[in-house]
């Protein structure tokens, strides 16, 4: 299993059901060997896009290109893509080994070669011992690995995964995330994964494409999306965020200041970014973990005072809600080890963050 993956491109892909648009003009490039995740809320069109790539759904407009070859009209069985379905879709009347051998059988591969490949694929997902079991005799995690082995055994050009981990409990999911990532590195294939779990998207992928209402909202490396969301939707969907409303009061190269109620907030921007117009309304996204609790003598670019309304202990950290006069309720997370305070309801606190901690984001169109 050493052949390199293939590059895939979607060009202006749209899918309409009657007057309803499930996928709206999505263009996307996936380089060979990359792990791309389609991330979005329920009904945002993730599965539909994946089904267009797999060939089960014919797009209303646009094209699917594999290494620059148009495959939009190719039926699914001719595409040679491995696919792991939501719920795995293992054949219940076949043993694990027969399930994995199925794609090889339909390709009329000789028995000796087939057996060797099946064994290698089961080795890959560490299921050699279960070859003779039925899928119903396996745990959820084992079934998921059988589905992976079956999708990889015929050296597919591309591996498509539709919420491969959603049926598993949290701990197992984390374990299999690591396995999936290691597997991707080992086989060097192009993976396209669908999920609505943002943590999974961040931890697994080389690139994440965020979808909403069938539209591609933003695409990029996980860290870039997390640190520089372009819209309120992205900031809110990928991780948690506080949103600060204000109007521009001063604009300098590399920074501007806004008034949010009676509070002045400083926002760092690129030196060569266009300066915002004065008194323009802006929206800032501020991650909870980038806010610090300030002691009496501490200073920061931005400071605000408030009272703790609620707090919860999460093991590794505290999640605290602080009511402020000008900025409303602010969510703050602190590592619990070495926390400067023991939080209590009604406790007055002073919060601070640097000018580079927040990012300006656009309000969503709808």
């Amino acid at each position, binding site marked *: 299993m050493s052949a390199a993956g293939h590059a895939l491109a979607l060009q202006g892909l749209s899918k309409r059901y009657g007057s309803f648009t499930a996928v709206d003009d999505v263009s996307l490039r996936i380089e060979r060997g990359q792990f791309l995740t389609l991330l979005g809320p329920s009904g945002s069109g993730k599965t539909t896009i994946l089904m267009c790539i*797999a*060939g*089960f759904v014919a797009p209303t407009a646009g094209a699917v290109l594999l290494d620059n070859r148009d495959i939009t009209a190719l*039926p*699914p*069985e001719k595409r*040679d*893509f*491995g*696919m792991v*379905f*939501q*719920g795995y*879709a293992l*054949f*219940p*009347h076949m043993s694990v080994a027969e399930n994995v051998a*199925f*794609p090889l*059988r*339909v*390709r009329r591969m000789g028995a000796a070669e087939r057996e060797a490949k099946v064994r290698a694929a089961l080795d890959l997902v560490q299921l050699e011992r279960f070859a003779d079991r039925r899928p119903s005799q396996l745990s959820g995690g084992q079934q998921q690995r059988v589905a992976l082995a*079956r*999708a990889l055994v*015929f050296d597919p050009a591309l591996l498509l995964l539709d919420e491969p981990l959603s049926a598993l409990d949290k701990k197992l999911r984390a374990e299999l995330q690591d396995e999936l990532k290691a597997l991707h590195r080992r086989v060097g294939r192009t993976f396209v994964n669908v999920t609505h779990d943002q943590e999974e998207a961040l931890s697994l992928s080389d690139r994440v494409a965020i979808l909403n209402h069938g539209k591609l909202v933003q695409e990029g490396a996980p860290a870039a999306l997390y640190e520089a969301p372009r819209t309120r939707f992205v900031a809110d969907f990928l991780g948690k965020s506080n949103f600060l409303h204000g109007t521009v009061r001063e604009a300098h190269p590399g920074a501007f200041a806004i008034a949010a109620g009676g509070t002045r907030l400083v926002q760092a921007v690129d030196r060569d970014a266009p300066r915002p117009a004065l008194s323009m309304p802006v929206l800032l996204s501020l991650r909870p973990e980038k806010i610090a609790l300030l002691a009496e003598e501490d200073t920061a670019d931005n400071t605000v005072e408030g009272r703790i309304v609620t707090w919860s202990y999460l093991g590794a950290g505290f999640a605290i809600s602080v009511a402020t006069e000008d900025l409303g309720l602010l969510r703050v997370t602190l590592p619990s080890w070495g926390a400067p305070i023991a939080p209590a309801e009604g406790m007055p606190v002073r919060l601070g963050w640097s000018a580079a901690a927040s990012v300006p984001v656009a309000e969503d169109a709808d």
Partner: protein
Amino acid sequence: MAAAAQRQTGWWLLILPAFLLMTAFYVAPILQVLTISFTEPQPGLQNYERLFTSESVQRVIWTTLRICTITTALALLLGYALAYRIALAEDRVRRWWILAVLVPLWISVLVRAFAWVTLLRRQGLVNQTLMETGIIAEPLQLVWNEFGIVVGMVHYMVPYAVLPMLASMREIDPRLLAAARGLGASRFTVFSRIFLPLSAPGLIAAGVLVFIFSLGFYITPAILGGGKTLMVAEWISLQILDLIRWGLGTMMATVLVVAILTTLAIFSRVVDLRRVFGSGA
């Protein structure tokens, strides 16, 4: 332990009245029939001897088995095609299909048999059409023979074949079929390697149901066979009502009951019988 046993007894008491009623009106007469087959005209096994010595008895049994096998095979074939079509149809279309399958069940078996007679007789619609189009010169003998019986019985049996098969086809996850295609299987391979094996329990269940049902068929063979081709049920009634040979008639009835119970016993090892009779579906 004791408490659980007591609760069990309580439940059994509840069905006691029904049990007594069944014994009095159902099991007792059957046992009586069984007894008569050993006692009439004189005590002994001579009625059962006829199974091995009488050519006419053997002929009836073979005719019945042949007709039932052919009927079952044809009903399964037609029923499978119909069930397949219905299982893959959209919800709205599916309801109409199911209705179309069920409607014949509400029409009296007598009416249906006579309808076939009018269609298939020498001056019937089928023969007339064939002669007018010049395909045949002489009318074909389509009724009062085994052909007519099989036509009538298949028509009667198709809904009974469709329902268990449809139930087991509906249980097949459509994603399995999509998955198989995604893994490189052609439509035909998807059918033969995934759909057919997964619908096999329904196929077997339908086969058992149709075969057992056919064994005891009376009205349809009596009308469409025209008294020339005798199946077991008609033969029994002939022995008892016309020839007053109670011993022979009850012997055959006993054989029929035993044959049905044996078939069920064999297949209960292969399929879940509750599926055959509907509660499993």
